[in-house]
């Protein structure tokens, strides 16, 4: 949920600003930076985890489990947005509702994909000494939800492309003498 468009200008501290204001802006900027890099790591990790032929089953499974943990953090960091947007759903206006719907579908698919992946694990769980019987239901569930997440993840990211472009410009461009 790349939903911190309001934080784009948060770093423009003026020399006249009060110390508490500057401290608050620094906090917001640090949080925005955390969101940006965490989202970037999630996207790269998801892309790698989806490419089973490239990673092999062991990396795929451990990456998937790690992805599940980081997704919990991602969702926790954006929980305010979830509550705020859910409350606003009754009001007219389509865009945020569409974003909310995409995010809800992604949450459902990603959760079921990771859960089913753990249940059909061939390497990670046996390494931890847990052996579950094979289930075609969870295997099918994993295939279907993985395909759906491949559709939903780029939509989810692209719906916030302005924020991503703004943050990428801010955090990746090296400007001498200008602290980020």
């Amino acid at each position, binding site marked *: 949920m790349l939903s911190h468009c309001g934080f784009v200008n948060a770093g423009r501290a003026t020399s006249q600003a009060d110390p508490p204001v500057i401290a608050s802006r620094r906090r917001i900027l640090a949080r925005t930076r955390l969101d940006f890099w965490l989202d970037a790591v999630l996207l790269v990790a998801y*892309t*790698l985890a*989806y*490419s*089973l*032929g*490239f*990673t*092999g*089953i*062991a*990396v795929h499974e451990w990456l998937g489990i790690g992805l599940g943990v980081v997704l*919990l*953090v991602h*969702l*926790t*960091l954006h*929980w*305010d947005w979830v509550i705020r947007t859910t409350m606003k759903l009754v009001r007219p206006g389509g865009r945020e509702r569409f974003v909310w719907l995409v995010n809800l579908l992604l*949450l*459902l698919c990603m*959760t*079921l994909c990771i*859960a*089913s992946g753990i*249940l*059909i694990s061939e*390497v990670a769980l046996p390494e931890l000494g847990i052996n*579950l*019987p*094979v*289930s*075609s*239901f*969870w295997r*099918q*569930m994993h295939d279907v939800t993985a395909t759906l997440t*491949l*559709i939903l*993840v*780029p*939509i989810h*990211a*692209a*719906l916030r*492309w302005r924020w991503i472009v703004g943050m990428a410009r801010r955090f990746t461009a090296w400007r001498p003498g200008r602290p980020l």
Partner: protein
Amino acid sequence: MKFLRHLAAVVLVVAVIVGLGVLWAHASGGGAGIGSGFKQVPSHQALLRIRQIKAGVIRLQPDDGIHLADTGNLIRTCEIEAVLATAVIAISVVRRWHRRMRRNAAAGA
């Protein structure tokens, strides 16, 4: 403290979704992983896959980590993501452009 409260809410939501998934598995009789005793016949797709593996149509990779030689799979994933993201961005740009034109027309009238 706020983070922990939110994390608890997120874990609860995730647990509800997984719980519903488990219920679905039991209802459809396929939750062999969580206690259901009977084995299902392999699906047509699974049998087809086994046949393709035996015939050499699908090449199996050893499970010893990243296979730099098989970047085709990774590239395909990136391509699908890029195409979908580009489509969404294009729609967003066109919609914004239309909105701006409408606003300009209304301001001019």
